[in-house]
């Protein structure tokens, strides 16, 4: 895999598909929020324990990470022309995104394990 992970067409398609999924998820999440009986930690935890919700949240996080990577990568490719500095920024970006992703999946896992 090259420095620009995913190259040209693939990221362009992923960016669009992920954008559609993110919008659909936001609509679903907002509808759940506004129709919930109570807005509290326990009800949120129960909502997340539902296998359907665990799945859609998991996919949402993946979509968001890819979308963020492609968007930020595009900004770096446009503006940062020094190749070493570009690699440095992209490496930091990947680290932050992977770290954030693992953190969210830990939360998802804990919410399932602690109730189960």
């Amino acid at each position, binding site marked *: 895999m090259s420095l620009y992970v995913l190259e*040209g067409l693939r990221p362009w398609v992923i960016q669009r598909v992920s954008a559609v999924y993110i919008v659909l998820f936001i609509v679903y999440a907002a509808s759940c929020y506004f129709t919930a009986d109570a807005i509290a930690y326990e009800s949120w935890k129960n909502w997340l324990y539902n296998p359907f919700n665990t799945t859609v949240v998991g996919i949402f996080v993946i979509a968001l990470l890819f979308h963020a990577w492609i968007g930020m990568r595009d900004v770096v490719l446009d503006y940062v*022309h020094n190749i070493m500095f570009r690699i440095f920024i992209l490496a930091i970006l990947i680290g932050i995104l992977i770290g954030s992703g693992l953190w969210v999946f830990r939360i998802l896992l804990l919410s399932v394990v602690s109730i189960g």
Partner: protein
Amino acid sequence: MKFKIYRFNPENDTKPHVQDYELNDIEPGTMLLAALLRIKDEQDQTLSFRRSCGEGVCGSDGMNINGVNGLACITPLDDLKQPIEVKPLPGLPVIRDLIIDMDQFYKQYRAVKPYLIVNDPMPEVELPQTPEQRERLDGLYECVLCACCSTACPSFWWNPDKFLGPAALLQASRFIEDSRDQDFEKRLEELEGPFKLFRCHTIMNCVHVCPKGLNPTKAIGRIKAKMVTRSL
């Protein structure tokens, strides 16, 4: 009528400056090129700019007029706010006054192989097209390579050596769409990668400034759609 014109002569100037000019007795309907020619004839023969046909066909006199790229020969003075600010097309090196070095622009144009590639033996008569096949080239073949679009594109300013720019991509689309061309696969393949095509962020400055009313953004979209279809 007042003009503010960008001046730079590398033989004498260390940096560019703006020079004021004034013209009287301008007839309604006069184009900017005619005014520039009058300034050159009557007031300052050192003022340099490219021009040729004077009819918007050759694409020589592309310049930045009141902040918007366009062809001086088809820009009526009546539509312009005064003082009329005239600068060279942005994003490419200035050779002198309103004349820019278009090497980078032509390099990207050549990179898309702007000619028909036919691998089969050439037929004895011409390569025929149906009216529908010919129609697919409308909006693509009319480009006069004035560079107004590419030099208005921020993505081209940022990466002029890597991003092909709207003008070259419009030409790429023109040959990708041509039913007679037999290099379709390779043409699409060569546009892959993060820079050549995909630096286009649909900013659409190219569409806004094109003096021929063409839509390079749409042409780029058609190339992307073809790439997606091909990859499926």
